[in-house]
Structure formats: structure tokens, C-alpha cells
């Protein structure tokens, strides 16, 4: 009888005990090619924040992250395309310049503050910026991974590729620069004077190098 009782009740009791003791661990982040970098250039966990830059391990590029703090990286600011001595200066909208804004202003400010420990910020090439296109974006969101690149607007983002012939209604302006449209993911050529958004990039950054290691 005792043996039978043991056989009958011990296994269920053990199963119950194991079920009670073995609780599922909380979810943890998975490996991903994007990594968060803080303002000082230090790597952060996938579920940590706030962060200032993102390193893409696939390309080795370090990307600026936009904010909503009304500082120089605020996502709503727009810029005309201006590089050294060509393009159109001060034709975008921002709060951080006395005059209006152009792409050179944001590059200068970002390098001066050594954003994420780097001072070689620049406009990305078309091919570089297109690596951020993310077809699995949520409904109505721009075509980018907004969990890593929040405050991205549904609009055009400048690339460094200037001196491109303009077509159609812009033909009379002769030349413009390439932008990537994050609504449809297309490449467009628009006049320098246009106010478009900007996401800066840096290569050979120490922060990204450390993260990739």
C-alpha cells in the first residue's frame, strides 16, 4: 500500500513542485546588427536609453539619432543643402541658429560637441542612407527601425550626393542633391533650396569599432 501511495502521489507532487520552482525567465534582448551608443560614445544595452547614436554592425557606420528635446538634433528641424561653397545656405527651419539652417550648420555643431565621441560627422552617401531603409516598419511609420531611430519624420533626408541634374518642374534650377524619401523608400533629386531632414553619419568611429569587436 505504501509503495503504491508513493508511486501514485510522488510523481504528481514532484511535477507540481518543479512547475512552481521553475518560473520562466523574463524576456531578454536578442542579437541585432544595430547597437545603441550614448552621448559619450559608450555602448548601451538594446533596451536601455536614452541614446544619441546607433552603430550598424553590418556597415560599421555610426548614425545620428534624432530627439524631441528642441536641441540641435531635434527631429523636426529641416535644412537646405549647403556644402562649402555650393548649394543654398540657411533655408531650413530650426531653433538653434540665429539665422535659418543648412546642412553645414548641423555638421559643424555636431562635430563641435563631439557627438558620441566623434568629430567626423558628415552627410551620408545615398547608398549608405539606403542601408537604413526598413520595409517591416509599422503601419504609417517612416521606413526605418523607429525603435532605434525614433523621431524620424515621414519625408526626405539629404545625402551628400550633390550636383545632380534636376528634372521636371525643377529643371530650371539645373542642379540639386539626392535625398532618400522615407515614406516610399525612393531616391529623389530635389533642389538645394528645399528644406529636408538630415541624419548625419560618421565612419571609423571609436564607438562603433568597440561595439563591433
Amino acid at each position, binding site marked *: 500500500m505504501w509503495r503504491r501511495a508513493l508511486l501514485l502521489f510522488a510523481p504528481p507532487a514532484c511535477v507540481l513542485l518543479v512547475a512552481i520552482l521553475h518560473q520562466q525567465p*523574463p524576456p531578454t534582448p536578442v542579437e541585432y546588427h544595430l547597437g545603441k551608443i550614448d552621448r559619450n560614445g559608450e555602448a548601451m544595452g538594446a533596451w536601455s536609453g536614452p541614446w544619441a547614436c546607433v552603430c550598424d554592425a553590418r556597415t560599421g557606420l555610426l548614425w545620428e539619432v534624432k530627439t*524631441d*528635446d528642441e536641441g540641435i538634433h531635434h527631429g523636426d528641424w529641416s535644412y537646405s543643402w549647403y556644402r562649402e561653397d555650393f548649394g543654398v545656405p540657411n533655408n531650413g527651419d530650426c531653433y538653434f541658429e540665429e539665422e535659418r539652417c543648412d546642412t553645414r550648420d548641423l555638421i559643424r555643431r555636431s562635430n563641435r560637441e563631439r557627438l558620441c565621441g566623434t568629430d567626423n560627422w558628415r552627410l551620408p552617401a545615398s547608398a549608405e542612407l539606403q542601408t537604413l531603409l526598413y520595409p517591416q516598419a509599422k503601419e504609417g511609420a517612416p521606413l526605418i527601425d523607429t525603435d532605434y531611430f525614433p523621431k524620424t519624420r515621414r519625408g526626405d533626408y539629404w545625402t551628400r550626393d550633390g550636383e545632380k541634374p534636376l528634372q521636371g518642374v525643377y529643371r530650371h534650377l539645373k542642379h540639386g542633391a539626392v535625398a532618400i524619401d522615407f515614406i516610399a523608400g525612393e531616391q529623389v533629386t530635389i533642389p538645394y533650396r528645399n528644406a529636408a531632414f538630415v541624419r548625419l553619419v560618421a565612419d571609423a568611429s571609436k564607438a562603433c569599432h568597440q561595439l563591433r569587436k
Partner: protein
Amino acid sequence: MVTFWDSAVTKYSKSNLWILFHTAAVLALLVNLSSGLRIATLRRPAIAQIAELLPDGRVHQLHFLGACALTAIACAYLLFRLYTLIRGGFRSLDWKNFDYHRCVIWGGCAVLAVSLASGWLLLSDTAALGSPRELHFAAALGMLLYLFFHGGSYLLQYGRRALLLILRPTRQPGGRLLASAAVATGVVLGGWHFIAGSAQHSLPVLRVSVSTPIHIDGAADETEWTSAQPLTLSTEGGANFANGNTPVTLRALHNTREIYFLISWRDPTESLTHLPLRKTENGWQVQQDGFHRFDETRYYEDKFAVLLSDACDFGAAGTAHLGRKPLDNKPANWHGHGYHYSDSDRIHDLWHWKAVRTNDMYLADDNFIGPPDIRRPGRRRYTAGYRKDGKESGSYVMNWQWYRPDTVIPKRLPRLAEQLARYESAGGDSDWVIPWFDFAPYAAENDDFPEGTLMPSVIYSSNRFEGDRADVRARARWRDGRWTLELARPLDTGSAKDVAIHTGTCLWVSAFDRAQVAHTRHNRPIRLELE
């Protein structure tokens, strides 16, 4: 020493029909207990301790199918006993051998009767009956005890012989037995299909003229509402409501272009303190008691959800999948309750009115439930099929740069300290929404607020959403322990993320009393009948 029952077990054998029905009863009981305990984990965290042993996924359907089978077996057994009673008279009851096992069996029958009766009452969603859930749960525990005292004692007494007796057929199953099994299975499945297809509340949608204005203001003072036939049903299982229960009353109108709902539910408290920030000696802290695992039940706004679907399956159109990880290849959820998602490509519409985040926008958040989303590595919370419709612009944001359970840095601070004076206590009825431009970007040098200062956390960056997410107009008012909510939406928005409304569209409603996910629910869908 050989007892009477020893000899009975060795001497007597059970008929194949008995074995068939007994086995079916045991299986149905186990299915019901396991699926029912899984459903109970939504309200009883103690049961979640054994969640690993319970089934995941669409357990509501499983529970209902098991209930149909158990009810059919119980009815068959009752008819058989009545038949033998009528044929043999009271002497056939065999009172002389009324021993321990018979006592247990009769006790089990009584508990089973209570369990079935309370279960079917639960399915009725009848508000006047209160919530029979407690009784149903107690009966489930009684059935667990019954398994122990009935099956356990037989096994203890006779060991393997008892198992052989109830499982080994005496001879090859004959054609009549197989036919009986097939008929019984057909009856159960047919009954299940019939009840599942017809067990719907009906909500008539009164037609009004296109020129009749229905103001979405929560006042419900249009005379048309009094002409609309109300439907009141009990919803239960929500956090913070008395016994988890609140009755919900619905009325509906349409003018061939738009549909209007008037919904009211009992909620003794108007909860507007949505995750407020409090200044502590270490900095600002989000007031929360469960938000870190996405299951806040204390510092949260009241909400109400309406699910619309062309499917009328149990378990919120079949979208409710319970358990910590109902999807093998997707992340687990933090709270262990489960996910809403569609098993097919079908889209289910979800309107989510929020007392703080959307009420002042005069909108409900237009969301949907679709197939499970992809895993998003940067997102700590995976929501499976529950997603938001797209928007062109406009939103609310939370007033922290990044959420942490210890301290946070606010996004914005009031321009004047007096702006926070009205939030001296968390129970006030002040406006708990911050207009973006009334506050300034956070700067450490401006953060000189004294310890104990309370600050709202919801910032409107614009007056309202624009685009697909703004299709549902909504406004609610709380008065005398009741919320009154008016909703309006075009019958067909043309959006792929919305469900076009017509006769036969089913809906489900849920109330949230300062709870993030722990909402009330009802069992039978509400079928719209448009005039």
C-alpha cells in the same frame, strides 16, 4: 484478506460502453480543468505558479468544447439513471452498498452539476445574475479534490487492476459501440458548432436620419438614444472592479453613413492619474505598481475597448491566446496573461478609448488585431497582433526621456512652478494632460522642484491624431460612479486596417479600471443588427 471491492474488481468487468463514456468523461474533465485553470490565471496570480503545466493559446475554445462534451456525458448519465430508476424502482438504487466510493461519486456528481450550471451561467453574460465565476472556480477545485478522492483512492486500493478495469475492453469493440461513439462525438461537435454559432447577444442598431445630429460629447442628451434598444451584459475578470465585475450597457444608432455607440459602465472611481511622476530625493520617479512588466493596476487611467470583427468565435473572435509564450518563435510576454493576434490574415478592429491619453482629443485610439508582428529587437514589449493604425501626425508622448523603474529624466518641465500646484494629491480631478508648449524642455538647472512634487506624465504634442488612427470619434464623461462614452465611426472607412460594419458584424467590449491590460470580458459576442 480479500474485501468485497477486491473481489468486485477481479470478478466484475465494465462494459465497453461504460469504458467509452468513463474515458470520455475523464478526458473532458482534464481538458476543462487545465484550460479553466489557465483562464483563471488572468485573475488569480497564485494559479500562475503552475502555469508551466497548463495549456497555452486558444484555451477558451478548448474549454467550451470540453464543457459541451462533459455536459453531454452528464446528461446521458442522468438519463441512464432515470431510466434505471423508472424501470427498477427505488430498490434499484442499492442503498445497502452505500459506502465510501459511492459517497465520493455522489459528491462528485453534485460538484459537477454546480460546475456545469455555473459555467453555462457564465456563458450567458447575464448582468442580473452577478458573477458566477467564484462558484465556478470553487467547483473546479472541488472537481480536483474529486479526482484525488475518487480516482486516487481506487488506484491506491487496487493499483493497476483498477486501471485495467476502467480501460481494458472485455471484448473486441463491436459495430454498435463504434457507432455509438461516432454518434456521441457527432452530438458533441454538432452541439458545440450550433451553440458557438448561435450564442450571440443581439444589438439592434436604430436607423436615424442623416440630418439628425449626434454630438459626440459624452452627454448622451439626444432623444434618439432613448429610442435605441439597450443591451446590458455582465463583463467580469477585470482588475479593481468590485469582484472584477462591471455591467456594461450599449445602445447603437446609424444613419447609413456613420454608426454611433452609447456605452455606459459602472466604475466607482474616475481614474486619471496616469503613471504620474513624483520628485524624490534621487530624482523623478514614475509612480507604478506593475508598469515595469506592462501590467499596471494602480497608477493608470480608466479605459474602454471595443473589438469588431467579421468572425464571431469565442475568445474575442479567436484572437485571445493565453499564456506566457503562446507563439513558439516569438517573444514571451512579461505578465504571463497572453496575446491577442489573428491566426489568419484576417484583421479585427480595436477601438481603444483612454480617459487621459485620448479623451481630450475627442478620439478613441483606432487600433487593430492582425497576424503576429515580427520580433522587434529594440522593443522590450512585444504585442503580437495588437497594433495601431497608421497616422499622418499628432500624438501623445510620455514625459520621460527613457523609462526606468528607479528614476527618470523628464522630457519637459513646467515653465512656472505654480503649474503643478493643482496636482498636490494623486486623487485630484485635475486635467492630467500637459500641452506641449505649456512646458519647456528639461534642463537640470531648472529642476528645483521640492521632493514630493507630483507631475502629470502625458503630453499632447498636438490636439489629435491625423489619419487612419483618428477614424473613431469618442468622448466620455464620468458622473456618479459611471462612465458614459459616445463613439462614432463611418460604417466603412475604406481602410485595410478597419472592419466595415454591417449586419452580422460581431463586437466585444472590455472595461479597464485604472488597469493597463487587466480588462473585463464577456463570453458571447454581440451581433449587430442594422435597421
